[in-house]
């Protein structure tokens, strides 16, 4: 079965190991991968800030790249929501609303694809540590993916899962919200981190690197005994380099 990879810009630039981990897992499961090299960004940063015209320019290019894909998988709830849900709100030059909906319908978030679409809950992963889960907003409320990531975590050998309070509350990233309202954004992130620490978790795991970057930023700044990870980090064993200066 052929699967095209959608590597969101943040993954591409900051956390390529998430893309690599996803590719390795999918390959191990027997999927044939295709990476369309012309992909850039889905347009979400502009859209969430209210710049619909600018977002549409980028989204139009995105659809050009993925229009012929039989099935697309990406490691981000929010980027997949952008393509599947929010593209409906944009005006395209080349694509009719039906085409946009049809192409968008072929996009799956990674854990949604494995569990909901393929029925795979065990990817043969091994991970030592106490893990709690943060439900990223777009994954949960736009795509309706609630239990799939938990199913995957449940089947990881060595992993001890602990639920935290308000796991479904927003982490406070929210795109440009994080710099337009930095105090609110940070306060929300701190609350999230505190909930994870309150259950003595070593790791707080989620399905979006944007939330992860925000939470890890707080953790680093405050030197807290916690690590924010993407679910692919846990499932693939490929960790984010702790010190970026020396490169990966």
């Amino acid at each position, binding site marked *: *079965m052929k699967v095209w990879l959608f590597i969101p810009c943040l*993954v591409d630039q900051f956390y390529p190991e998430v893309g690599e981990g996803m590719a390795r897992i999918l390959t191990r*499961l027997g999927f044939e991968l295709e990476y369309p090299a012309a992909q850039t960004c889905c347009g979400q940063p502009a859209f969430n800030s209210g710049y619909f015209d600018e977002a549409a320019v980028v989204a139009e290019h995105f659809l050009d790249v993925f229009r012929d894909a039989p099935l697309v998988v990406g490691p981000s709830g929010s980027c997949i929501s952008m393509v599947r849900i929010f593209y409906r709100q944009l005006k395209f030059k080349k694509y009719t609303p039906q085409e946009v909906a049809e192409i968008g319908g072929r996009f799956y978030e990674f854990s949604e694809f494995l569990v909901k679409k393929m029925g795979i809950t065990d990817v043969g992963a091994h991970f030592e540590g106490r893990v709690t889960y943060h439900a990223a907003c777009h994954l949960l409320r736009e795509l309706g993916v609630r239990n799939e990531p938990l199913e995957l975590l449940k089947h990881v050998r060595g992993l001890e899962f602990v639920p935290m309070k308000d796991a479904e509350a927003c982490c406070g990233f929210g795109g440009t919200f994080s710099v337009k309202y930095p105090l609110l954004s940070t*306060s929300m992130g701190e609350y999230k981190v505190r909930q994870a620490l309150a259950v003595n978790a070593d790791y707080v795991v989620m399905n979006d690197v944007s939330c992860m970057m925000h939470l890890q930023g707080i953790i680093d*700044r405050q030197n807290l005994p916690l690590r924010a990870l993407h679910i692919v980090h846990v499932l693939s064993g490929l960790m984010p380099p702790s010190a970026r200066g020396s490169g990966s």
Partner: protein
Amino acid sequence: MKADPRYFKMNIRESLADEHLQTVLRKACDEVLVKRAQIVAEMPHWQQLRDAASRIKAHVMANLDTYLLQLERNLTANGVKVHWARDTEEARNEILEIARKHNVWTAVKSKSMTSEEVGLNAFLEERKIRPVETDLGEYIQQLSGEPPFHIVTPAMHRSRQDVGRIFAEKLGVPYTEDPESLTRIAREKLRDAFLTAEMGITGANFAVAETGTIVIVENEGNARLTTTAPKVHVALLGIEKVIPTLQDLRVFLNLLSISSTAQRLPCYVNLIRSPRREGEHEGPEEVHVVLLDNGRTEILDDDEMVSALHCIRCGACLNVCPIFQRVGGHAYGWVYQGPIGSVLTPLYRGLNVGYQLPFASSLCGACSEICPVKIDIHHLLLVLRNRIHHNLSDWWLERTAFRLWAFGSSRPRFYRFAERLLRLFLRLFVPHAKELPVPVWSKTRAFPRPARRSFHRRWRRLAKELENERPRTGEHSGDL
């Protein structure tokens, strides 16, 4: 704290620094959310109820003229006097005229956000008519000289110690923090007001067109007294409050009481059809209904925004909103707070007044998920963001930045060139920095350095490696 939406950004600093507020607010929100969730979990048809409510509201908005005329006809037939108010000023003057006609010195009020919307209390006070709020929360707020903090629970930010201090200071009673004693004090004070008031002013939760019935939902019995003890009752309501039939009311009563105060049913549901009739022992001699537009018909014509009129003012979106939980109601600077307030304020007051509010959201969607009438609140916020950019000119710098970004991100070769340039720049100027200084962000959070090689640059080698790793007869290798 300034009561002006244009000061939102300044107001939130004050809220975030107020530890007492943070503690009380979080506890209050948590409590009602937990109880609500428990009840909803026991209701197998909750989603169907929401669907039904959403359908009814959409139907009403599409036929609002018909239902409003039907409502007017039936109210009039029941002996109720109907007044139409185009805006704040007309609404105030209609009410003032009724008050003058009946020589009103004191008017008791039950909770009404619509009366807050038109600034009725201050207007009446200036004209020597004393408005007395009779909902306990509203009463506390009136005593302390503050506007309501929350559309449903106006004194949500007050601990019982706070209330004890306010009562001691304003009413000259000995300090107590016992809720029952405090309620008893308020009850005694308010009894006097009920007995002396010549007029009762209320809002309404619904107005049933088919029967000409005004519906007021409450928990304290104060609305019942307000509508029956004085000789005149005036109900002020937005035109969007009309629903077609009493059957429809069943849908909304459940949704409203569960969403607002986590009760299966409210303590009192007042159905008011007429003034006191011959042979009846109680009720006012006159009942007036003031139907307020104040910008609502403009929203009605706005296809993208019309669902904002579906709101039944339950306040659930406030309680669940991580922003509201931190900034509180007063920071929003106007009567409607939280996510729905961030939609209504720019619509009612204008984009140039409410322009900060639609951006005060991480777009997490918790508001839309909890809304009992399924208003897609966070999508409305997105559309408002777009409109603000189009209508207000002082965003040119940001727009230019996004135009450049759009140019680069729609041209893959340019994009990859820029990516290389950035890495070269970083290697030359900050070769050893583990994090990058990003304006604003870096004040509270570390910002990571980009990976040395992007996924894009890794792919070719990775693809070769994976080619060898692929299981030859994997279960998903064939077409499924």
